[in-house]
């Protein structure tokens, strides 16, 4: 009896608290952490593993210069968006975070601060700012490009300029100690980036994605995808299993000459800092259907959390402003982060060879756009990756069946 009574008491307390919590959740959306923060401390949570250390160094310099404390929260890579969501929901959201593309911006719209009018935003290269609903909600990290990063001692660019030549080159490495090409097990390195090509080779890749979403077409009936399926089959037959290789190992093997080519982007250059490269490297287009253009786009955007109090939003904007206009900030962006700047006021000098290749391709107009920014949210991690794992694990899955499984994955993500 006594036990019952106390249980009842306990439950009624709990229910009362729940109701209070739910009420609270309803109306303080635009006002989280409104009471604290005097603009003396901002937090940054960003998605690029490669720049973590450099960003922390930059934060220290900023703190020395201005006295504003900048805390950089360690990043985790593939599950960044999930982590960000958890932080935002539990009121521990950072003042500055990154938004990869418009689909993410749409999801997080209520958190995004409108940066239009801030000084540094005027310098963003044309069409490069992330706009949502007529507001500028994100400024680009930089322009990035990916393709075949190759060892100039082992690969002759002309040999891999065509799809046929590329496959022949891969085959020529069979039986040697050197692998022709390697992919890595991480979602974007396994399938996310490489799946761009058949999309981006469409006349209008955005329209194509839309028609996929509407069910008007399928990948299986599109010529570029059929070719992609065939090529992936050839790749699978001639490279070590990518599921066995982590990003670190992929870079390590390439840097020590055990792999001739890797499918990577200019961001990977920072990873080579730990190695003494005794050969020259460069970047070539991935020759699907003899494609001769690098895939270039904006990898991520800085966004300011508009739900913080005014002082903190201001401090966050000030930091971004400083980063993009001061000499120190600009030097970090180009030299330490290794970004190809997407700002007209930042000169791109002394770029590393991979970034230089991206910049050259951009200036020469030899680029195709990124399509994965238009994919349904989280498609690559949730649905494409299992399909790709299945393809690489099971030898008897044909390229055609692989493309069909990508279709199924797309349907699952848009249902």
């Amino acid at each position, binding site marked *: 009896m006594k036990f019952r009574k106390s249980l009842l008491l*306990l*439950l009624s*307390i*709990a*229910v009362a*608290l*729940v109701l209070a*919590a*739910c009420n609270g*959740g309803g109306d303080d*959306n*635009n006002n989280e952490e409104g009471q604290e923060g005097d603009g003396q401390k901002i937090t940054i949570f960003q998605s690029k593993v490669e720049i973590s250390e450099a960003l922390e160094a930059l934060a220290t310099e900023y703190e020395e210069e201005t006295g504003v404390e900048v805390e950089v929260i360690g990043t985790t890579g593939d*599950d960044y968006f*999930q982590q960000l*969501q*958890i932080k*935002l*929901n539990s009121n521990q959201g950072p003042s500055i975070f990154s938004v990869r593309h418009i689909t993410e911006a749409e*999801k*997080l*719209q*209520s*958190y995004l601060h409108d940066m239009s009018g801030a000084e540094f935003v005027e310098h963003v290269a044309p069409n490069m700012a992330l706009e949502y609903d007529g507001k500028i909600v994100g400024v680009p990290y930089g322009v990035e490009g990916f393709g075949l990063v190759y060892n100039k001692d082992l690969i002759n660019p002309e040999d891999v300029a065509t799809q046929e030549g590329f496959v022949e080159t891969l085959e020529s490495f069979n039986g040697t100690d050197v692998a022709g090409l390697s992919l890595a097990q991480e979602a974007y390195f396994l399938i996310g980036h490489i799946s761009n090509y058949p999309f981006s080779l469409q006349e209008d890749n955005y329209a194509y994605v839309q028609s996929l979403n509407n069910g008007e077409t399928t990948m299986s009936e599109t010529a570029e995808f059929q070719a992609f399926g065939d090529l992936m089959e050839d790749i699978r037959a001639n490279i070590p*299993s990518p*599921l*066995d290789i982590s990003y670190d190992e992929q870079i390590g093997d390439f840097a020590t000459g055990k792999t001739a080519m890797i499918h990577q982007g200019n961001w990977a250059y920072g990873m080579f800092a730990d190695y003494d490269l005794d050969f020259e490297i460069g970047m070539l287009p991935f020759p699907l259907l003899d494609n001769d253009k690098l895939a270039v786009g904006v990898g991520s955007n800085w966004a300011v959390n508009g739900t913080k109090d005014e002082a903190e939003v201001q401090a966050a904007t000030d930091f971004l402003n400083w980063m993009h206009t001061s000499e120190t900030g600009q030097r970090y962006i180009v030299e330490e982060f290794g970004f190809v700047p997407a700002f007209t006021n930042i000169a791109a000098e002394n770029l590393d060879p991979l970034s230089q290749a991206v910049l050259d391709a951009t200036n020469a107009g030899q680029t195709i756009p990124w399509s994965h920014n238009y994919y349904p*949210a*989280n498609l690559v*991690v*949730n649905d494409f*990756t*299992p399909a790709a*794992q*299945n393809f690489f*694990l099971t030898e008897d899955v044909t390229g055609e069946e692989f493309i069909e499984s990508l279709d199924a994955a797309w349907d699952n*993500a848009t249902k």
Partner: protein
Amino acid sequence: MANRMTKGWYLFFTLPLLIIFVTVVIIPFLMGIYYSFFDWDGIRANPMVFVGLENYGQLLGDTRFIDSAWVTVKFTILAVITVNIIGVAFALLVTTSLRTVNAARAMLFMPNLIGGLILGYIWQFIFSDAFKIIGEATGFDSVFFNWLLDPDYALYALVFVFTWQMAGYMMIIYITGIQGISNDIIEASVIDGAGYWQRLRKIILPLLMPSFTICLFLTLSFGFKIYDVNLSLTGGGPVNKTELFALHIYNEIFGYGNYGFGQAKAVVFFVIVAAVTLTQVYITKKREVEM
């Protein structure tokens, strides 16, 4: 007066615990049930649409959910068997008169002190690198290959690591059980001429039933709820073949952004775990014998 004093003390000591329990268990639990009736993407500012029981209705048609449930059951059955057999074996071993008993106990328990996440990463390295090297060196590459890349073996790898982690913990419980058995009975059986196996089967194991109740309960519920080792060892891969229930719910909520649907799964999960463990406690309780 004295009575009131004790009551005061009771309250003083239980209240903090009660508050913690209510805030971290009861409230989230009730909120979870509440959210399971909504269609919501988990972002606070976005609209929550009340859909009633629709989320629960959708569950049966979700093949990935069914697959995950089946894998979890398979994992739990395997894990309960291996953890308890090895736990009992360890316990019997370290209650003998071996000279290294204390060191052995400490070492067997030690894996349990390492956090599940770290454990998963350590074993991931062992499976993907060490196994491959052993396989190449010894030629037994039908056993020593990267288990994590094979859809079936990845599950066995999970069972293996979970056993490695939990067996020492269960051993401790079994040790207390064994030490609780009165020497008189053992001696009497020896005098009556019972051999070791007879003694084990007819006396020690029946008298260990209370320990079995506890250990089966713990391994069952730990097994069902496993998340950390799953996340770091296989991440649900390859091809989602080792996506156990807790990870599946996480992916539904944070991967696909179906907060309400994921919560509905969590509620169903709770009901299943509660039903299974309570049944088990009921059954094993009945088999406990008094000395």
